[in-house]
Protein backbone atom coordinates (compact mmCIF):
# COMPACT_ATOMS: atom_id res chain seq x y z
CA UNK A 1 0.00 0.00 0.00
CA UNK A 2 2.74 2.43 1.01
CA UNK A 3 6.36 1.98 0.02
CA UNK A 4 9.02 4.40 1.15
CA UNK A 5 12.46 4.25 -0.43
CA UNK A 6 15.41 6.11 1.03
CA UNK A 7 13.64 9.35 1.77
CA UNK A 8 15.53 12.20 3.36
CA UNK A 9 14.22 15.60 4.31
CA UNK A 10 16.27 18.69 4.98
CA UNK A 11 15.01 21.99 6.33
CA UNK A 12 17.84 24.28 5.30
CA UNK A 13 20.97 22.67 6.71
CA UNK A 14 18.94 20.68 9.22
CA UNK A 15 18.44 17.02 8.29
CA UNK A 16 15.14 15.85 9.75
CA UNK A 17 14.75 12.49 8.01
CA UNK A 18 17.74 10.36 7.15
CA UNK A 19 17.35 7.81 4.41
CA UNK A 20 14.18 6.13 5.66
CA UNK A 21 12.86 3.03 3.90
CA UNK A 22 9.88 0.94 4.85
CA UNK A 23 6.76 -0.74 3.53
CA UNK A 24 3.26 -0.63 4.99
CA UNK A 25 0.74 -3.25 3.92
CA UNK A 26 -2.92 -2.69 3.24
CA UNK A 27 -4.94 -2.86 6.45
CA UNK A 28 -1.97 -2.34 8.73
CA UNK A 29 -2.17 0.05 11.64
CA UNK A 30 1.21 1.61 12.33
CA UNK A 31 1.88 3.74 15.40
CA UNK A 32 4.79 6.11 14.97
CA UNK A 33 6.33 7.10 18.28
CA UNK A 34 9.47 8.81 19.45
CA UNK A 35 10.78 11.92 21.17
CA UNK A 36 9.75 15.42 20.09
CA UNK A 37 11.67 16.70 17.14
CA UNK A 38 12.65 13.20 16.06
CA UNK A 39 11.01 13.63 12.65
CA UNK A 40 7.87 11.55 13.16
CA UNK A 41 5.45 14.24 12.01
CA UNK A 42 7.66 15.10 9.06
CA UNK A 43 7.71 11.44 8.09
CA UNK A 44 3.92 11.30 8.22
CA UNK A 45 3.53 14.54 6.27
CA UNK A 46 5.79 13.19 3.54
CA UNK A 47 3.32 10.37 2.90
CA UNK A 48 0.80 12.75 1.32
CA UNK A 49 3.47 15.20 0.22
CA UNK A 50 2.46 18.01 2.57
CA UNK A 51 6.23 17.93 2.98
CA UNK A 52 8.28 17.15 -0.09
CA UNK A 53 11.15 14.79 0.66
CA UNK A 54 14.52 16.24 -0.37
CA UNK A 55 15.43 12.89 -1.89
CA UNK A 56 14.04 9.38 -2.15
CA UNK A 57 10.85 7.89 -3.50
CA UNK A 58 7.41 7.20 -2.08
CA UNK A 59 4.93 4.84 -3.71
CA UNK A 60 1.23 4.73 -2.88
CA UNK A 61 -0.38 1.64 -4.40
CA UNK A 62 2.57 1.27 -6.77
CA UNK A 63 2.30 4.84 -8.02
CA UNK A 64 5.37 6.96 -7.38
CA UNK A 65 3.97 10.13 -5.79
CA UNK A 66 7.39 11.77 -5.54
CA UNK A 67 7.51 11.85 -9.34
CA UNK A 68 6.70 15.46 -10.31
CA UNK A 69 4.49 14.16 -13.11
CA UNK A 70 2.14 12.43 -10.67
CA UNK A 71 -1.05 14.35 -9.98
CA UNK A 72 -0.71 14.58 -6.22
CA UNK A 73 -4.21 16.04 -5.79
CA UNK A 74 -5.61 12.84 -7.27
CA UNK A 75 -3.60 10.72 -4.80
CA UNK A 76 -4.54 12.89 -1.82
CA UNK A 77 -8.21 12.15 -2.35
CA UNK A 78 -7.41 8.60 -1.31
CA UNK A 79 -5.37 9.61 1.74
CA UNK A 80 -7.26 11.12 4.65
CA UNK A 81 -5.40 13.23 7.16
CA UNK A 82 -6.23 14.28 10.70
CA UNK A 83 -4.24 17.09 12.29
CA UNK A 84 -3.25 17.91 15.84
CA UNK A 85 -4.99 21.28 15.61
CA UNK A 86 -8.09 19.83 13.86
CA UNK A 87 -7.96 22.48 11.10
CA UNK A 88 -11.72 22.47 10.64
CA UNK A 89 -13.09 25.20 8.39
CA UNK A 90 -14.38 27.71 10.96
CA UNK A 91 -16.84 29.45 8.64
CA UNK A 92 -18.68 26.25 7.73
CA UNK A 93 -21.10 24.15 9.77
CA UNK A 94 -20.08 20.71 10.91
CA UNK A 95 -22.04 19.10 8.08
CA UNK A 96 -20.56 21.47 5.49
CA UNK A 97 -17.08 20.71 6.78
CA UNK A 98 -17.72 17.03 6.13
CA UNK A 99 -19.51 17.40 2.78
CA UNK A 100 -17.34 20.13 1.26
CA UNK A 101 -14.69 17.91 -0.31
CA UNK A 102 -17.05 15.18 -1.54
CA UNK A 103 -19.11 17.86 -3.26
CA UNK A 104 -16.40 20.14 -4.59
CA UNK A 105 -13.66 17.58 -5.24
CA UNK A 106 -15.58 14.38 -6.00
CA UNK A 107 -18.51 16.25 -7.58
CA UNK A 108 -21.13 14.39 -5.58
CA UNK A 109 -24.61 15.89 -5.46
CA UNK A 110 -25.53 17.81 -2.32
CA UNK A 111 -28.04 15.14 -1.33
CA UNK A 112 -25.62 12.27 -1.78
CA UNK A 113 -22.83 14.10 0.06
CA UNK A 114 -25.13 14.98 2.95
CA UNK A 115 -26.32 11.42 3.19
CA UNK A 116 -22.71 10.23 3.52
CA UNK A 117 -21.87 13.11 5.86
CA UNK A 118 -24.78 12.45 8.20
CA UNK A 119 -23.99 8.77 8.29
CA UNK A 120 -20.34 9.43 9.19
CA UNK A 121 -21.26 12.03 11.80
CA UNK A 122 -23.63 9.58 13.44
CA UNK A 123 -20.83 7.01 13.45
CA UNK A 124 -18.60 9.40 15.39
CA UNK A 125 -21.50 10.25 17.69
CA UNK A 126 -22.20 13.80 16.53
CA UNK A 127 -25.59 13.58 14.85
CA UNK A 128 -26.91 16.36 17.07
CA UNK A 129 -24.12 18.75 16.05
CA UNK A 130 -24.47 18.85 12.28
CA UNK A 131 -25.64 22.47 12.22
CA UNK A 132 -23.16 23.70 14.81
CA UNK A 133 -20.04 25.66 13.95
CA UNK A 134 -16.61 24.36 14.98
CA UNK A 135 -16.17 27.00 17.69
CA UNK A 136 -19.27 25.66 19.43
CA UNK A 137 -17.66 22.24 19.88
CA UNK A 138 -15.25 20.82 22.42
CA UNK A 139 -11.81 19.70 21.27
CA UNK A 140 -12.80 16.06 21.24
CA UNK A 141 -15.89 16.82 19.18
CA UNK A 142 -13.83 18.89 16.74
CA UNK A 143 -11.39 16.07 16.25
CA UNK A 144 -14.21 13.61 15.63
CA UNK A 145 -15.63 15.96 13.00
CA UNK A 146 -12.16 16.13 11.46
CA UNK A 147 -12.04 12.34 11.28
CA UNK A 148 -15.50 12.24 9.68
CA UNK A 149 -14.39 14.93 7.20
CA UNK A 150 -11.40 12.84 6.16
CA UNK A 151 -13.49 9.65 5.92
CA UNK A 152 -16.08 11.36 3.72
CA UNK A 153 -13.63 11.14 0.82
CA UNK A 154 -13.63 7.36 1.29
CA UNK A 155 -9.86 7.17 1.68
CA UNK A 156 -7.86 3.97 1.56
CA UNK A 157 -5.23 5.31 3.94
CA UNK A 158 -5.67 7.49 7.02
CA UNK A 159 -2.84 9.57 8.46
CA UNK A 160 -3.11 10.90 12.01
CA UNK A 161 -0.71 13.59 13.19
CA UNK A 162 -0.84 13.56 17.00
CA UNK A 163 -4.65 13.57 16.95
CA UNK A 164 -5.04 13.74 20.73
CA UNK A 165 -2.14 16.00 21.69
CA UNK A 166 -4.19 19.20 21.70
CA UNK A 167 -7.06 17.70 23.69
CA UNK A 168 -7.99 17.98 27.33
CA UNK A 169 -7.31 14.62 29.02
CA UNK A 170 -10.97 13.73 29.47
CA UNK A 171 -11.56 14.05 25.72
CA UNK A 172 -8.77 11.81 24.57
CA UNK A 173 -10.76 8.63 24.97
CA UNK A 174 -13.69 9.61 22.75
CA UNK A 175 -11.28 10.28 19.88
CA UNK A 176 -9.24 7.15 20.44
CA UNK A 177 -12.45 5.09 20.52
CA UNK A 178 -13.40 6.37 17.08
CA UNK A 179 -9.93 5.49 15.84
CA UNK A 180 -10.16 2.03 17.34
CA UNK A 181 -13.43 1.41 15.53
CA UNK A 182 -11.81 2.59 12.35
CA UNK A 183 -8.86 0.23 12.82
CA UNK A 184 -11.30 -2.67 13.14
CA UNK A 185 -12.75 -1.91 9.72
CA UNK A 186 -9.41 -2.77 8.14
CA UNK A 187 -8.39 0.78 7.30
CA UNK A 188 -4.69 1.31 6.63
CA UNK A 189 -3.63 3.77 9.31
CA UNK A 190 -0.42 5.58 10.17
CA UNK A 191 -0.68 7.33 13.53
CA UNK A 192 1.86 9.64 15.11
CA UNK A 193 0.99 9.49 18.78
CA UNK A 194 2.12 9.86 22.36
CA UNK A 195 -0.63 7.56 23.62
CA UNK A 196 1.41 4.47 24.41
CA UNK A 197 -1.50 2.40 25.69
CA UNK A 198 -3.42 3.08 22.54
CA UNK A 199 -0.40 2.16 20.42
CA UNK A 200 0.05 -1.05 22.37
CA UNK A 201 -3.59 -1.99 22.06
CA UNK A 202 -4.47 -0.97 18.49
CA UNK A 203 -1.32 -0.94 16.41
CA UNK A 204 -0.03 -3.88 14.40
CA UNK A 205 3.41 -2.31 14.20
CA UNK A 206 5.40 0.29 16.05
CA UNK A 207 7.85 2.61 14.35
CA UNK A 208 10.19 4.11 16.90
CA UNK A 209 11.72 7.13 15.23
CA UNK A 210 14.67 8.94 16.72
CA UNK A 211 16.90 11.55 15.15
CA UNK A 212 15.42 11.06 11.68
CA UNK A 213 15.67 7.28 11.40
CA UNK A 214 13.30 4.40 12.16
CA UNK A 215 15.34 2.95 14.98
CA UNK A 216 12.92 0.11 15.65
CA UNK A 217 10.17 -1.43 13.55
CA UNK A 218 8.56 -3.95 15.82
CA UNK A 219 5.51 -5.75 17.03
CA UNK A 220 3.92 -3.68 19.84
CA UNK A 221 4.18 -6.38 22.51
CA UNK A 222 7.80 -6.93 21.68
CA UNK A 223 8.58 -3.24 21.58
CA UNK A 224 6.94 -2.33 24.86
CA UNK A 225 8.31 -5.29 26.80
CA UNK A 226 11.71 -5.74 25.21
CA UNK A 227 12.87 -2.79 23.16
CA UNK A 228 16.04 -3.66 21.31
CA UNK A 229 17.84 -0.35 21.38
CA UNK A 230 19.13 1.60 24.36
CA UNK A 231 17.50 4.71 22.95
CA UNK A 232 14.05 3.11 22.96
CA UNK A 233 14.56 1.72 26.47
CA UNK A 234 15.52 5.16 27.65
CA UNK A 235 12.50 6.73 25.90
CA UNK A 236 10.05 4.22 27.35
CA UNK A 237 11.48 4.50 30.86
CA UNK A 238 10.80 8.21 30.76
CA UNK A 239 7.19 8.05 29.64
CA UNK A 240 5.74 4.85 31.07
Amino acid sequence: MIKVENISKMFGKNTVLKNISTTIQSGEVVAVIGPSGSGKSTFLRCLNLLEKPTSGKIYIKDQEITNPKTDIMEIRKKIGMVFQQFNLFPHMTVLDNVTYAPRKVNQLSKEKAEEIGKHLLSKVGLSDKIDSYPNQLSGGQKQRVAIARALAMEPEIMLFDEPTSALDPEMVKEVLDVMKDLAKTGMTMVIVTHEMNFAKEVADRIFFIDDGVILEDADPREFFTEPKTERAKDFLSKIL
Partner: protein
Amino acid sequence: MRLDFSQLTPYIPFILEGIIVTLKFVSVSILIGLVLGTLLSLCKISKNVFLKALANAYTSIFRGTPLILQLMIIYYAVPQLTNYDIPIYLSAILSFGLNSAAYVSEIIRAGIMAVDKGQVEAAEALGVPYWKMMKDIILPQAVKNILPALMNEFITLTKESAVVSTIGYLDLMRRAQVVGAALYRNFEPLIFVGIIYWVMVTILTKLGSMVERRLRTSDQG
Protein backbone atom coordinates in the same frame (compact mmCIF):
# COMPACT_ATOMS: atom_id res chain seq x y z
CA MET B 1 -11.64 90.53 10.42
CA ARG B 2 -14.97 88.94 11.23
CA LEU B 3 -16.35 85.73 9.80
CA ASP B 4 -19.30 86.18 7.50
CA PHE B 5 -20.89 83.01 6.17
CA SER B 6 -23.92 84.82 4.71
CA GLN B 7 -21.95 85.79 1.60
CA LEU B 8 -21.45 82.11 0.92
CA THR B 9 -25.16 81.44 0.46
CA PRO B 10 -25.42 81.90 -3.34
CA TYR B 11 -22.47 79.57 -3.84
CA ILE B 12 -23.75 76.75 -1.67
CA PRO B 13 -25.40 74.75 -4.53
CA PHE B 14 -22.16 75.10 -6.51
CA ILE B 15 -20.12 73.74 -3.59
CA LEU B 16 -22.60 70.96 -2.78
CA GLU B 17 -22.40 69.81 -6.39
CA GLY B 18 -18.74 69.15 -5.59
CA ILE B 19 -19.81 66.38 -3.24
CA ILE B 20 -21.25 64.47 -6.20
CA VAL B 21 -18.17 65.18 -8.30
CA THR B 22 -15.83 64.04 -5.55
CA LEU B 23 -17.87 60.94 -4.73
CA LYS B 24 -18.14 60.04 -8.40
CA PHE B 25 -14.43 59.95 -8.90
CA VAL B 26 -13.57 58.52 -5.49
CA SER B 27 -15.94 55.57 -5.92
CA VAL B 28 -14.66 54.73 -9.39
CA SER B 29 -11.08 55.00 -8.11
CA ILE B 30 -11.91 52.66 -5.24
CA LEU B 31 -13.36 50.17 -7.70
CA ILE B 32 -10.26 50.27 -9.91
CA GLY B 33 -8.05 49.96 -6.83
CA LEU B 34 -10.06 47.03 -5.55
CA VAL B 35 -10.01 45.02 -8.78
CA LEU B 36 -6.39 45.72 -9.64
CA GLY B 37 -5.33 45.37 -6.00
CA THR B 38 -6.95 41.93 -5.75
CA LEU B 39 -5.16 40.78 -8.90
CA LEU B 40 -1.86 42.13 -7.59
CA SER B 41 -2.31 40.43 -4.23
CA LEU B 42 -2.91 37.10 -5.96
CA CYS B 43 0.32 37.66 -7.91
CA LYS B 44 2.12 38.37 -4.64
CA ILE B 45 1.07 35.11 -3.01
CA SER B 46 1.54 33.03 -6.14
CA LYS B 47 4.56 30.79 -6.58
CA ASN B 48 5.32 32.37 -9.94
CA VAL B 49 8.53 34.34 -9.38
CA PHE B 50 7.92 36.67 -12.31
CA LEU B 51 4.38 37.66 -11.28
CA LYS B 52 5.54 38.12 -7.73
CA ALA B 53 8.40 40.41 -8.73
CA LEU B 54 6.11 42.38 -11.02
CA ALA B 55 3.51 42.97 -8.31
CA ASN B 56 6.16 43.89 -5.75
CA ALA B 57 7.79 46.35 -8.14
CA TYR B 58 4.41 47.91 -8.85
CA THR B 59 3.69 48.34 -5.15
CA SER B 60 7.14 49.72 -4.50
CA ILE B 61 6.78 52.39 -7.18
CA PHE B 62 3.26 53.52 -6.35
CA ARG B 63 3.82 53.57 -2.61
CA GLY B 64 7.29 55.01 -2.92
CA THR B 65 6.40 58.20 -4.80
CA PRO B 66 3.98 61.02 -3.96
CA LEU B 67 0.44 60.65 -5.19
CA ILE B 68 0.45 64.21 -6.49
CA LEU B 69 3.47 63.35 -8.64
CA GLN B 70 1.67 60.34 -10.11
CA LEU B 71 -1.34 62.52 -10.84
CA MET B 72 0.78 65.15 -12.58
CA ILE B 73 2.69 62.58 -14.59
CA ILE B 74 -0.52 61.02 -15.88
CA TYR B 75 -2.16 64.36 -16.58
CA TYR B 76 0.80 66.14 -18.19
CA ALA B 77 2.99 63.35 -19.51
CA VAL B 78 0.36 61.33 -21.34
CA PRO B 79 -0.57 64.15 -23.78
CA GLN B 80 3.09 65.00 -24.28
CA LEU B 81 4.10 61.43 -25.05
CA THR B 82 1.08 60.16 -26.96
CA ASN B 83 -0.66 63.25 -28.25
CA TYR B 84 -3.78 61.97 -26.52
CA ASP B 85 -5.39 64.83 -24.63
CA ILE B 86 -6.34 62.92 -21.52
CA PRO B 87 -9.48 64.27 -19.81
CA ILE B 88 -9.10 65.46 -16.23
CA TYR B 89 -11.60 62.93 -14.96
CA LEU B 90 -9.74 60.04 -16.57
CA SER B 91 -6.37 61.12 -15.17
CA ALA B 92 -7.93 61.53 -11.75
CA ILE B 93 -9.50 58.06 -11.56
CA LEU B 94 -6.43 56.48 -13.17
CA SER B 95 -3.90 57.94 -10.77
CA PHE B 96 -6.04 57.38 -7.68
CA GLY B 97 -7.09 53.91 -8.80
CA LEU B 98 -3.56 52.81 -9.68
CA ASN B 99 -2.20 54.28 -6.46
CA SER B 100 -4.90 52.72 -4.32
CA ALA B 101 -4.31 49.32 -5.95
CA ALA B 102 -0.82 49.25 -4.47
CA TYR B 103 -2.15 49.73 -0.94
CA VAL B 104 -5.14 47.43 -1.45
CA SER B 105 -2.88 44.65 -2.72
CA GLU B 106 -0.85 44.83 0.49
CA ILE B 107 -4.00 44.80 2.62
CA ILE B 108 -5.40 41.75 0.83
CA ARG B 109 -2.05 39.94 0.81
CA ALA B 110 -1.63 40.45 4.55
CA GLY B 111 -5.23 39.34 5.16
CA ILE B 112 -4.70 36.12 3.23
CA MET B 113 -1.36 35.42 4.89
CA ALA B 114 -3.00 35.84 8.31
CA VAL B 115 -5.33 32.87 7.68
CA ASP B 116 -4.02 29.89 9.62
CA LYS B 117 -1.64 27.73 7.57
CA GLY B 118 -3.50 24.66 8.81
CA GLN B 119 -6.46 25.67 6.65
CA VAL B 120 -4.38 25.35 3.49
CA GLU B 121 -2.99 22.02 4.68
CA ALA B 122 -6.45 20.66 5.49
CA ALA B 123 -7.69 21.67 2.05
CA GLU B 124 -4.62 20.24 0.31
CA ALA B 125 -4.91 16.98 2.23
CA LEU B 126 -8.50 16.66 0.98
CA GLY B 127 -7.32 17.19 -2.59
CA VAL B 128 -9.10 20.55 -2.99
CA PRO B 129 -7.75 22.37 -6.09
CA TYR B 130 -6.03 25.75 -5.54
CA TRP B 131 -8.76 28.05 -6.88
CA LYS B 132 -11.58 26.31 -5.05
CA MET B 133 -9.54 26.42 -1.87
CA MET B 134 -8.96 30.16 -2.35
CA LYS B 135 -12.58 30.89 -3.14
CA ASP B 136 -14.34 28.69 -0.59
CA ILE B 137 -11.90 28.36 2.28
CA ILE B 138 -9.18 31.00 2.39
CA LEU B 139 -10.83 34.17 1.07
CA PRO B 140 -14.01 33.95 3.19
CA GLN B 141 -11.78 33.84 6.26
CA ALA B 142 -9.40 36.49 4.97
CA VAL B 143 -12.27 38.94 4.45
CA LYS B 144 -12.48 39.41 8.21
CA ASN B 145 -8.89 40.60 8.32
CA ILE B 146 -9.21 42.60 5.12
CA LEU B 147 -12.43 44.61 5.43
CA PRO B 148 -11.53 46.88 8.36
CA ALA B 149 -8.19 47.82 6.78
CA LEU B 150 -9.92 48.30 3.44
CA MET B 151 -12.38 50.75 5.00
CA ASN B 152 -9.41 52.72 6.28
CA GLU B 153 -7.97 52.82 2.79
CA PHE B 154 -11.28 54.17 1.42
CA ILE B 155 -11.34 56.89 4.07
CA THR B 156 -7.79 57.92 3.24
CA LEU B 157 -8.64 57.96 -0.44
CA THR B 158 -11.67 60.18 0.16
CA LYS B 159 -9.59 62.72 2.04
CA GLU B 160 -6.62 62.59 -0.31
CA SER B 161 -8.97 63.08 -3.26
CA ALA B 162 -8.62 66.83 -2.62
CA VAL B 163 -5.26 66.58 -4.38
CA VAL B 164 -7.02 66.50 -7.79
CA SER B 165 -7.83 70.18 -7.33
CA THR B 166 -4.20 70.80 -8.34
CA ILE B 167 -4.92 69.78 -11.93
CA GLY B 168 -8.07 71.85 -11.98
CA TYR B 169 -10.65 69.12 -11.46
CA LEU B 170 -13.76 70.78 -10.06
CA ASP B 171 -14.08 68.68 -6.92
CA LEU B 172 -15.09 69.95 -3.48
CA MET B 173 -11.67 71.38 -2.74
CA ARG B 174 -11.36 73.17 -6.04
CA ARG B 175 -14.82 74.66 -5.66
CA ALA B 176 -13.85 76.09 -2.29
CA GLN B 177 -10.93 77.81 -3.98
CA VAL B 178 -13.11 79.09 -6.82
CA VAL B 179 -15.63 80.53 -4.39
CA GLY B 180 -12.84 81.95 -2.30
CA ALA B 181 -11.45 83.77 -5.31
CA ALA B 182 -14.89 85.13 -6.22
CA LEU B 183 -15.59 86.42 -2.72
CA TYR B 184 -12.06 87.54 -1.92
CA ARG B 185 -12.60 85.57 1.28
CA ASN B 186 -11.03 82.15 1.53
CA PHE B 187 -11.63 81.20 5.12
CA GLU B 188 -15.39 80.66 5.03
CA PRO B 189 -15.53 78.43 1.93
CA LEU B 190 -12.57 76.42 3.20
CA ILE B 191 -14.24 75.89 6.56
CA PHE B 192 -17.45 74.97 4.77
CA VAL B 193 -15.89 72.21 2.62
CA GLY B 194 -13.81 71.15 5.60
CA ILE B 195 -17.03 70.34 7.42
CA ILE B 196 -18.33 68.48 4.36
CA TYR B 197 -15.16 66.34 4.19
CA TRP B 198 -15.42 65.67 7.91
CA VAL B 199 -19.04 64.55 7.59
CA MET B 200 -18.25 62.27 4.65
CA VAL B 201 -15.31 60.66 6.45
CA THR B 202 -17.34 60.28 9.65
CA ILE B 203 -20.09 58.50 7.75
CA LEU B 204 -17.52 56.18 6.17
CA THR B 205 -15.93 55.53 9.56
CA LYS B 206 -19.31 54.68 11.06
CA LEU B 207 -20.02 52.38 8.14
CA GLY B 208 -16.63 50.77 8.73
CA SER B 209 -17.25 50.04 12.38
CA MET B 210 -20.70 48.70 11.51
CA VAL B 211 -19.17 46.26 9.03
CA GLU B 212 -16.57 45.30 11.60
CA ARG B 213 -19.20 44.63 14.24
CA ARG B 214 -21.24 42.54 11.81
CA LEU B 215 -18.13 40.48 11.03
CA ARG B 216 -17.39 39.95 14.69
CA THR B 217 -20.88 38.76 15.54
CA SER B 218 -20.94 36.42 12.55
CA ASP B 219 -17.48 35.17 13.49
CA GLN B 220 -17.89 31.45 13.85
CA GLY B 221 -14.14 30.92 14.17
